[in-house]
């Protein structure tokens, strides 16, 4: 006797513990297998891009903090680069080195959070997450020394940063980098060789590199498929052309490869910061107010600047009509663009892998919905 079966549609989110914020998916299941996924965006939309049209160029820095709230420094950096390009500002060298150090620290913090939450989605009851978060706390302490804030830093200004690092920052940074390396070693000991982690993530949600390129996916997701694409190397901004680092690649393009690339990139970031510390020289951290006034009036025109964010290419497009506020601001949010392949990753997979795959994208709803 044939048993009559039919797929079941289940609503997951927006109030679901694993949606990394407020994301909603209508998922159709055939048993444990996913037949169809319909993502529903927009629950965290705050209109950041529209708000920017009402604020001066310096004030917008605070808005960018709140987009991807686990990598505020990187958002700051991308936005500031766009403003500098738009207004033709020549940044101070020390300011550039400082913001490179800050953004690389933020990259490590973001990758640690991504790894911790991936393990949380895998079902480890908080322990790896808290280990990762504990190390992130040390990085946030360093940020507190730099600018007094921990999450929403607003540290960067057009032309550099708003204040120099205090004297006690440098020994603390040195110790912090050693700690980070130790933590990554520890995480890798527990996770990379863990049979459950490996069997759950290997070979799941495989994406071919061609598909990733056509969908303009960037960042660790792309590098996990073997495509050597890192803006720090391909189109160096700030002083990344004075820095040498390895681009870590993996060909499997599955959930494990994405995890692996993030962990290795965090290691590379430590090396980059060490090179920054060697090359940084005393000086002003931003141009004087005669050169770069508080109220910037860029000439009419537009500019797009992109950096290698923690999640991919993070770009800011600014249009100026010559006024004190941008006429239009648009953000190329890497989380949103990386999420466009959600259906390709999930359909045909298992329910148990749904949120793991979702977590391996390393998305941040603050950036997706803005």
């Amino acid at each position, binding site marked *: 006797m044939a048993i009559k079966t039919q797929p079941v549609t289940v609503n997951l989110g927006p109030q679901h513990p694993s949606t990394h914020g407020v994301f909603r998916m209508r998922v159709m299941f055939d048993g444990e297998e996913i037949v169809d996924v319909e993502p529903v965006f927009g629950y965290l939309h705050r209109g950041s891009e529209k708000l920017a049209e009402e604020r001066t160029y310096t004030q917008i820095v605070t808005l960018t903090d709140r987009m991807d709230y686990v990598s505020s420094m990187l958002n700051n950096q991308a936005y500031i680069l766009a403003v500098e390009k738009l207004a033709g500002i020549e940044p101070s060298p020390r300011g550039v080195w400082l913001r490179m150090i800050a953004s690389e620290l933020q990259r490590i913090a973001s990758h640690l959070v991504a790894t911790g939450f991936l393990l949380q989605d895998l079902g480890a009851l908080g322990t790896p997450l808290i280990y990762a978060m504990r190390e992130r706390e040390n990085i946030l302490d360093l940020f507190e020394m730099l600018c007094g804030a921990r999450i929403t830093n607003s540290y960067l200004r057009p032309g550099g940063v708003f204040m120099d690092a205090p004297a006690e920052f440098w020994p603390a940074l040195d110790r912090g980098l050693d700690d980070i390396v130790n933590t990554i070693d520890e995480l890798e000991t527990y996770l990379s060789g863990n049979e459950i982690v490996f069997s759950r993530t290997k070979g799941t949600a495989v994406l071919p590199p061609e598909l990733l390129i056509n969908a303009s996916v960037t960042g660790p997701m792309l590098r996990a498929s073997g495509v050597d694409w890192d803006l720090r190397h391909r*189109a160096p901004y700030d002083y990344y052309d004075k820095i040498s680092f390895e681009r870590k690649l993996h060909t499997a393009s599955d959930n494990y490869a994405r995890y692996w690339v993030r962990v290795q990139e965090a290691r590379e970031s430590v090396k980059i910061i060490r090179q920054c510390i060697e090359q940084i020289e005393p000086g002003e951290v931003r141009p004087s107010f005669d050169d770069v006034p508080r109220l910037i009036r860029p000439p009419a025109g537009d500019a797009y600047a992109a950096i290698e964010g923690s999640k991919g290419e993070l770009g800011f497009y600014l249009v100026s009509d010559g006024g004190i506020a941008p006429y239009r601001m648009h953000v190329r949010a890497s989380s949103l663009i990386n999420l466009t392949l959600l259906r390709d990753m999930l359909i045909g997979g298992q329910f148990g892998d749904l949120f793991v795959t979702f977590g391996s994208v390393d998305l941040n709803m603050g950036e997706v919905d803005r």
Partner: protein
Amino acid sequence: MNHLFLDNSLWRNIYCVLAGESAECAARDYSSGFLPGGMEWLAFLLAAAAIIGIVINAVLGGVIVLIWGERRLFGRFQSRTGPNRWGPFGTLTSVADAVKTMFKEDLVPAEADRILFNLAPVLIAAPALLVFSVIPFGVGTYVADLNVGVLFIMAVTSLTTLAVLTAAWSSANRIAILSALRSVALLISYEIPMALALVGVIMLAGSMALGDIIAAQGIPFILVQPLGFFVFFIAAMAEMARAPFDLTEAESELAAGYLNDYASMKFGLFFLAEFMAELSTSAIVTTLFLSGWKGFDPIPSHFWFAAKLIAVLFVIIWFRMTLPRLRVDQVLKFAWKGLFELTMINIIVTAVLIAIWPQPTTGQLWIMAAINWPVAIISIWGVSKLLGTPAYENSQPSADAPTYPVASESIPAASVLGADKGGD
């Protein structure tokens, strides 16, 4: 009755305090009881009720302590303090939680089947308690020593799944149904290796009564039956749906699974049953594999039982804190392709050894242990090789891997920052 009288000191003491001039009590220096002569039947009933009351309250008290201990241990594992506000070392946190749970609004979904919805919490709590009726907590301290004790445990622990299915079905929630179906799949798969893992123990003891099994353990059966212990422990973890097998609750997937629509003390009963299952599993492992209440003399048997129980609980909590969850298909594959084979190897090896030494003495048990350990290690290694995930063969890209066009070629140079600096 005679059986109860000879062995069950808990029952005997209460009975003799109550009963009048009965022959059995007189022989054991109990001159007279509270009840007049001829009322022994009432003493019998009251004694039984008193024992059940003592055991239920001990278990519930144990659960309160366990919840506190588990949360404290979680804190230690996660490099934080854990509950420490209410009472010394946070010991009263569970009490506060219980009070809070009782005063919550008792919600029933509009589309729920009310009768089944209200029945499910009872269905899950009752079997969790029933298991303790056959566990010997110390010398002569048990409710009943059934001659089919092991079978009784297996039967009663499976009832949990019925309650889970009832809860999920009655709450008319699709996520809950998914969770319940996983629960049934787990039960069907893990009940078999769990039962087969105990066959070795039953063969060694020659009895299914827990009292006889403890008596037969000249050395703890964990030494004689390492494979049986390994399989039973894993299967029991799966049976009570603890991490890494917490597929039914799977917080990161199903939110709370079959518990999604439960609130107030109905949720509290499920919660209680979950921890009672943890306690009962540890008690079963202690009894069957760690020689129960046996120990050396100056320390009373009940303390030995408690100490071994706590050790097993620690390991369960440790696993739960450390390991991520397995996927459903992997869990089922592991049961059928891994654990089932291991139990078969164990049964064959044990059967051969029993054929050589039908009633093993302690010395012969040591010899069996010496044979069983290499068998266990080799077979577990073999299964892990067969079922383990192979590593990547080559994870580094070749030179002709596809890539984005370089910024200066087809993307307008002005749109990419720093394109004039050269890039690649």
